[in-house]
């Protein structure tokens, strides 16, 4: 072994580091391209519409639950009112036949 072979190894090692730098450059370039793509796709109308569509479906489900609550309330009003119908009809009858109106 000689100094010359040592220099050769040093050169090889430097190439190895250079290769890593090149690879690092590629990694960063890929990341920047990905970032660009992310930002670009965000502003695409199609994507915006897709998101709105998903949101719309969520709100529609919420609205349906709300409407269902109102339906139940209307049914409850019918049920409880039904029991007082006779009393209400009697009030009307009395008022109609009252002399002082």
């Amino acid at each position: 072994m000689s100094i010359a072979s040592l220099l050769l190894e040093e050169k090889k090692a430097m190439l190895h580091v250079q290769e890593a730098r090149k690879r690092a450059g590629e990694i960063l370039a890929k990341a920047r391209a990905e970032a660009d793509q992310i930002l670009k796709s965000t502003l695409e109308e199609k994507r915006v519409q897709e998101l709105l569509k998903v949101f719309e479906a969520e709100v529609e489900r919420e609205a349906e639950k709300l409407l269902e609550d109102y339906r139940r309330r209307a049914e409850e009003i019918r049920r409880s009112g039904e029991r007082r119908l006779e009393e209400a009809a009697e009030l009307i009858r009395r008022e109609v036949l009252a002399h002082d109106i």
Partner: protein
Amino acid sequence: MTSEQIQALKEEIWRRAREKAEKILEDAEREAQRIVQEAKEKAEEVLRSRVEPEKLLMRRRIIGRAIGEGRRLVIAAKNELVERAFEKALEKLKRDAQAKSEDYRRFLLKAFEKAVSFYSNTDGDLIIYANESDINLLREAIGKLPENRSNRIRLERADILGGIIASDPDGRRVYYNTIEGRIEALRPILREKVASILFGGGGSR
């Protein structure tokens, strides 16, 4: 320099080179992750500012529609019950009129007295329209009036549930006091009272 020393130097050269290469790649990976993460956050922010106002409007529209529809359902249920109470009351009043209940007799005779009183300042004749089944009752009531008044009252049959309609012969002054008329006239006032009974204080609207 011995071959062992040279070998040791070579190994040191490669150890340092590998270490440096690894660090370069690690830094690159970290930086790449940061770039992508930053882009995602920025994208999220951009998207939010673009979509949120539309989401807000959409939500207001859809939920607002559901609330409106729901309220209509509740109001319809209440109105339906109030109407049924009036229908039921009308049936009861029909039965009262047909059976000539005590309450109905009082109502009919009071209506008759009011009609007579309404026309008391006129010298002309008075026509009283009534349901056929009430004619006899009214005839009795007319019979109890002074003769100069009773012989100017004429009874006519009319297709009404109960009560009377009184009129001068030319129909210029007409006094209505029928069951149907009273129920319709009282409807706006009674709606609130009826709703209060049916729904415990809540209005029908």
